[in-house]
């Protein structure tokens, strides 16, 4: 079979960054082709080029054998290229139909013809088994359903070449299964698919071939059936990677944190965490597994004081801290590596040294009588930056915005560990980082545990939870499904629990 898309020797440079440096990718008619690479390897840029959002500096693109210039998403549309973006591009207060027709509207005279469009959408939805209500408003439907709306958007435009950008990041295990079924259906109907991912298991499950890129360069294209996960991982990272993290068995001590019957509302004023109880002891890492939005934020924010609880108790070293302010909890020894380092973890327009004293700027020796003491701040920051290997242009006076994501994260972790907390809460500490940084951060977390600290690790990455934690608690719909020892469980079991199946019920 011929190639429907060929992207040859693509180069794309942004001010200061070479995002794509000689990448070649060929998509065969009727295949599912995975595009594998680490965060920042250049996958999204490459696909944005194919979709017409960026223009390549060098290289050429052939669609069905003809060389093409894809100047805008409209051109991509006309060529039958459609894309499901990682962050859905849907207008929240529009209906499904309005979202789908946007940009290629049917009209009766000057008036929008939404009825005919809705009928067409309904038919498409039936044909591909998508089960979408064309009249529902986007803000009222689930994330999985929203993704299917995105798929319908492509089908409505008769796209033949479908790009999926990290499609499983926001889905439950069942929804992932469902999505894979839909993808196979699409292939049966003659479509061709490119799926961007860094999850090897999904590639194994669904893809025919896989192109691996690293630091903007193509490493190679392999047949998935003939290649092991280990081999693909090595291509992606560029060296031998062991997914197992080196660690001694835990030696848990006293209970540091004890949550009892915690009820916490989410931002929509309904219970986001319901009757939740959990213990974390000194010298152990407790992992919390679950699909995004199942109560993790509520849990973390309740412990740190960012969100008030409805009922229940938060015992910390033997006393209830539920009424304490955020600052008091920090002073009591609760460290928090937040989920979103740019939203919460750092003041991006402050310098590194200013960020290193974010919680303690007003304490001795960093301030005296309400006046900051730069010298003390500088030397404290210097120490953290050295011991945590934070690299920046101008050292402590670099503005944090100018740092790479990995260095920003290392700075946060350094700051929190330097506070010497008794309880360290790490939320998605490795999100969006390359494998080197991930290994480094995991090592640091285990080091804290070995020093006798309690660590609570919240992550969406199952691998991370399984490899780093000693004990695993699983969340579903704001409730604790169960607790298991990391050494006695496996991915399957956790996956089922994440879907709400109690231990022993299924499998």
């Amino acid at each position, binding site marked *: 079979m011929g190639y429907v898309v060929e992207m040859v020797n693509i180069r794309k440079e942004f001010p200061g960054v070479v995002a794509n440096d000689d990448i070649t990718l060929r998509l065969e008619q009727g295949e599912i082709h995975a595009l594998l690479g680490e965060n920042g390897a250049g996958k999204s840029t490459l696909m944005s080029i194919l979709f017409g959002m960026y223009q390549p500096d060098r290289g050429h693109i052939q669609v069905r054998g003809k060389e093409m210039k894809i100047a*805008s998403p409209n051109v991509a549309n006309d060529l039958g290229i459609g894309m499901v973006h990682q962050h859905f*591009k849907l*207008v929240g207060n529009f209906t499904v139909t309005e979202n789908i027709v*946007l940009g*290629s*509207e049917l009209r009766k005279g000057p*008036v*929008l013809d939404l009825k005919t469009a809705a009928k067409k959408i309904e038919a498409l939805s039936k044909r591909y088994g998508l089960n979408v209500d064309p009249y529902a408003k986007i803000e009222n439907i689930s994330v999985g359903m929203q993704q299917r709306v995105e798929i319908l958007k492509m089908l409505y435009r008769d796209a033949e070449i479908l790009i999926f950008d990290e499609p499983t990041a926001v889905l439950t295990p069942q929804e992932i299964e469902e999505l894979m079924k839909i993808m196979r259906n699409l292939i049966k109907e003659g479509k061709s698919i490119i799926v961007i991912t860094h999850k090897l298991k999904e590639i194994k499950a669904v893809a025919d071939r896989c192109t691996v890129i690293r630091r903007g360069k193509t490493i190679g294209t392999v047949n998935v059936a003939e290649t092991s996960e280990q081999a693909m991982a090595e291509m992606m990272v560029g060296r031998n990677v062991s997914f197992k993290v080196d660690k001694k068995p835990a030696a848990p001590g006293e209970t540091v944190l004890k949550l009892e019957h915690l009820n916490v509302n989410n931002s929509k004023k309904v219970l986001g965490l319901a009757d939740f109880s959990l213990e974390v002891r000194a010298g152990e890492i407790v992992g919390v597994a679950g699909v995004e939005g199942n109560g993790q934020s509520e849990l973390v924010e309740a412990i740190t004081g960012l969100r008030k609880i409805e009922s229940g108790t938060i015992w910390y070293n033997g006393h209830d801290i539920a009424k304490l302010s955020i600052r008091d909890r920090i002073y009591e020894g609760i460290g928090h590596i937040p989920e979103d380092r740019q939203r919460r973890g750092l003041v991006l327009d402050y310098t590194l040294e200013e960020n290193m004293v974010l919680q303690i700027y007003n304490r001795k020796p960093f301030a005296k009588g309400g006046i900051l003491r730069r010298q003390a701040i500088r030397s404290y920051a210097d120490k953290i930056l050295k011991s945590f290997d934070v690299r920046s242009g101008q050292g402590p006076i670099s503005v944090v915005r100018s740092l790479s994501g990995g260095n920003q994260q290392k700075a946060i972790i350094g700051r929190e560990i330097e506070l010497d907390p008794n309880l360290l809460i790490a939320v998605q500490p490795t999100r969006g980082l390359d494998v080197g940084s991930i290994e480094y951060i995991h090592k640091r977390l285990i080091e804290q545990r070995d020093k006798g600290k309690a660590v609570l690790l919240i992550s969406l990455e199952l691998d991370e939870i399984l490899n780093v934690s000693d004990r695993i608690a699983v969340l579903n719909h704001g409730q604790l499904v169960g607790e298991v020892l990391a050494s006695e469980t496996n991915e399957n079991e956790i996956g089922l629990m994440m879907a709400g199946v109690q231990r022993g019920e299924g499998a």
Partner: protein
Amino acid sequence: MWDTIANIFPYAIVYTIPLLITALGALFSERSGIVNIGLEGLMIVGAFAGALTINKLQAAYPGEQWTLWVGLVAAFVIGVLFSLLHAFASINLSANQVISGTAINMVAGSLTIFLARNITGSGNIRILQGFRKFDIPVLSDIPIIGRLFFSQTYWTTWFILGVLILSTFLLFKTRFGLRLRSCGEHPHAAEAAGVSVRKMRYMGVMISGGFAGLGGAIIISTYSGEFNGSVAGLGFLALAALIFGQWKPLGVLAATFFFGFASTIANVSQVIPSFQVIPAVILKVFPYVVTLIALVLFSKSSQAPKAAGEPFDSGKR
């Protein structure tokens, strides 16, 4: 009491119309994602252009009504052109929209007086004759309603109400409206769907400029009759009405009428015994306080376009 209300009503409507058209223009701008606090300035520019055009034409063609309509057209065009400054700053340069809007207000306020002084010396521009009031035949004889709505009306009132209906249709029933609204809610979605966010936002701002210009000229050609370099905060009141009306055409109509009515009462309170008991200051401050309260009440469930005020950068995901 009935007589008082019936007497006030036509004035309230006259006062409402410039507010309504200006707020309606701002509705287009904000629905496309651009906050326009330069309404005051755009109204001033429109008032200036309208007054100058009408003044010159009436000198050449005394007593002709069409001169007034030409004045409105001129105000619309100048309003559009002037709003391009705001559009360029906030769309092409991703400038802070509040600062740009403030600059528009200040440039308009000082530039028009500067020019007017060069023309007339005093800085004021009078028109000889404004629109004539008339009672609509038949309809004005309907009991109650006739006296309230169809007596002593201006043609501009009916024209602007027509624009309101047309705008509602445009926003919610046509391709243009769908695309415009998508740019104000989620410009990245619009872009991915092939809609040119820049173009739609330019359209929104330009409509806002044109409508505000019309509003300014209607003030001149109905109740004021003279340009003096200010529209006395009506532009800001229109902005308040937009919020109070929750970014919906009918809401804006209700809010502007409410403000128009309140202001009229405040203006006439001295001469009407039943209002004299209320201190004038309370009547004057009333609309602003109501808006503050509305802001608090709507703070949890605001219908504000989500992307309004945020510069759009197509690289950001």
